[in-house]
């Protein structure tokens, strides 16, 4: 019996160590993602309820321009791929590769956000604002929330690059890279829904 106990404690040895802490944080992050998913689902539901309430203003068909959105989508999908390459480089132990791919990812993300802002500005310029109709309120809020998430991700990865240059690839930075990468893929997945539900279904 005593032997079994000792064995259990020996196994437990790592419990307080850094390794487990990093595991905890990853798990916590996944749960956070669930909550974020619910947040987006609520916004999608709102959009779907409201998207025909145009209050006499234009509807989706009249204002969306698919080509630009397809380019945006392509850019974001690519950035998801490069963030995957960053993780691969990290696993191969290449700090240079890691940081390089992260920078590419940020640049792609930034151009995505840039395009989105341009689209928004153009709409506002044409007089289609969040104030115009329930449909546009839903549109700006849903798409804008996604854009805000991407922008946040850009800041986050930038901060992470600085930390990587200071500390190199450690257990902590490794976990952070993993988490930001999951976050980035998540935003990609949400975007696919935005693309399908808002834009594709809108112009159909």
């Amino acid at each position, binding site marked *: 019996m005593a032997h079994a106990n000792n064995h259990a*404690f020996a196994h437990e040895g790592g419990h*307080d160590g850094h390794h487990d802490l990093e595991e*905890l944080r990853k798990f916590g992050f996944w749960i956070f993602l669930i*909550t974020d998913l*619910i947040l987006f689902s609520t916004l999608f539901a709102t959009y779907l309820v409201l998207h025909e309430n145009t209050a006499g203003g234009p509807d989706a068909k009249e204002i969306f321009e698919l080509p630009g959105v397809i380019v945006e989508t392509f850019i974001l999908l690519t950035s998801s791929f490069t963030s995957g390459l960053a993780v691969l480089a990290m696993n191969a132990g290449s700090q240079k590769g890691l940081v390089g791919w992260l920078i590419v990812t940020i640049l792609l993300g930034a151009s995505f956000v840039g395009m989105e802002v341009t689209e928004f500005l153009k709409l506002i310029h044409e007089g289609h604002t*969040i104030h115009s109709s329930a449909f546009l309120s839903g549109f700006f*809020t849903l798409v804008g929330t996604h854009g805000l998430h991407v922008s946040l991700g850009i800041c986050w990865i930038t901060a992470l690059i600085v930390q990587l240059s200071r500390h190199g690839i450690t257990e902590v930075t490794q976990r952070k890279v993993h988490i930001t990468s999951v976050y980035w893929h998540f935003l990609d997945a949400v975007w696919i829904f935005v693309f399908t539900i808002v834009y594709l279904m809108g112009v159909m």
Partner: protein
Amino acid sequence: MRGEASVIDQIKDFASWFFVSGDPLIYGADVAIALTTAAIIFVLSYFGKWGWLWREWLTTVDHKRVGIMYIIAALLMLFRGGVDALMMRTQLVFPDMKFLSPEHYNEVFTTHGVIMILFMAMPLMFGLFNIAVPLQLGARDVAFPFLNSLSFWLFFFGAMLFNMSFVIGGSPNGGWLSYPPLSELTGSPGVGEDFYIWGIQVSGIGSLMTGINFIVTIVKMRAPGMTWSRVPIFTWSVLSSCIAIIVAFPVLTVTLALLFLDRFLGAHFFTMDGGGNAMMYVNLIWMWGHPEVYIVVLPAFGIYSEVVATFSKKRLFGYGSMVFAMLSISIMAYFTWLHHFFTMGSGANVNIFFAISTMIIAIPTGVKIFNWLFTMFRGRISFTTPMMWTLAFIPCFVVGGMTGVMLSVAPADFQFHNSYFLIAHFHQVLIGGVAFGYFAGLYYWWPKMFGFKLNETIGKWAFWIWNIGFYVCFMPQYVVGLDGMTRRINSYGWDTGWWAMNFTSTIGGFLMGIGFLFQVWQIAHSIKFMEKDTTGDPWGARTLEWSIPSPAPLYNFATTPLVTDRDDWWEEKERIAAGKMPKEKPKLEPIHMPKNSPIPFIQSICWFTVGFGLVFHWLWIAIPGFVGIALTLLAHSFNYDTDYYIPVDEIRQTEAKAGRGV
């Protein structure tokens, strides 16, 4: 000269708009707030306690201290919410009294509802989570101590923001769920509604993080050997409550954000014009609101289960069915939200679905009641205060549950809706189910928090006064509700025949107020005449938190316990009593602990600043707040020096001081 005078006039104008004025009650509150603040500052400076406050409390990441701060804040809020309640009851005694004007009455029932549910029940519950869960799990802390402290401060500053509306700018008056169009700019042009939005939003983010934190803690930090079938029942209830939190609170976040966009940017989510849909708000808010009532009641169920088992000296009857019942409630809670607005024209089939789902949810609750009764059956029951509250809860909840089922019958609900019948029902479940449960929990874990028991005699007085007051207050409301009295009115005609019932009800309300005073006295008296508990296990209880000294040392467990049974500590005591060897304990090792951090406190002040700025639409205040949040996030991310080790010698000394050899 003229220019100067107009500046002064401007300042006067501004002040009379910014500070709520014109009501003696509010001037009284102003004076009270100013005096209390001055007194606190004076005492802290006089005794040189600022450093202590900062180091030991404001920056702490210790779950036990965070828990205590939650509980103190919640009790203060119980006081404020209680004063609101008594003000309403006073007005209702004499319908033509001008004690509260209709507008003021609206503000009071709104703030009362919000404070009781969001700033009293929730933090009291989180306080008990923090006190008990890590200890029940045999863990050193929660999974994310830093986040835990952040959650607390977000709650605290959110609550402060909300409370401020009382003296600055004006209180919200759209009811505790703020339905549009009442809560839109057209219905509430002042800042009250924005205080509502930001006060709840900031604290709600904290609640969401607490939900995540405790799920991870329970899933990942159980002591070795604690399989799912050995997890203490309170911890199970916390898990089911937290699952409901992480699903429900994001919906609340979105709902409030959308309402704010309507008010701030002129969006049209819920407005009457521009294609907005006010019913969508009602759906969204109840998708959060209904689970919310289960969020607060599930942990109370957990407490009752612990208390019943401990004070019957028996294993909880039907552990498995209890867990199953709680988990299924936390899931089913999402399919009942529409019962809150049967009368709003959703159509018969929709109403039928939600009527049936609501009746079904009563089944697991019934199962639990039988489990508690069977646990007591043939047990050696001791009638301590926690047990008394538990016993009082059972009949109360049975009645409250039955009136709930009455409300869930859609056609009948058309009759009861928005009447005092409903008020009586939900107070019966919220006070009899939730508040009684948390009181039981507070009494039960008090010795674990502070190392001494609360005075039982005064506690029993408080108990009886509360209970009698409760029935005197709320039973007449069922009657007067069936008699047609609607809620949210500050006056009614003498010819309605409602007076006698209202008068009785108010007496009951004041009795409960006296019961609360007895509880305050009980705490004060017990602090003065405390008898230190040296055993760590004053109730002869069953779960791991009682196996360590009270109050628990910083690191909780000197060595991580190895769990071999459900109610492990009880079984261990039985083994020792039967002359067997106690479980072997591993060698002491340095303990890894998180360092304190000022960031949660500072970041929460930044959130408060953002909220305050946005309430008044003053971006020059909100933007620095945002910058502050960003900077604190970065500061935390760049900080790699977050933990330290407690050396073995120090552990040995601490344990020896608590009378334990290791």
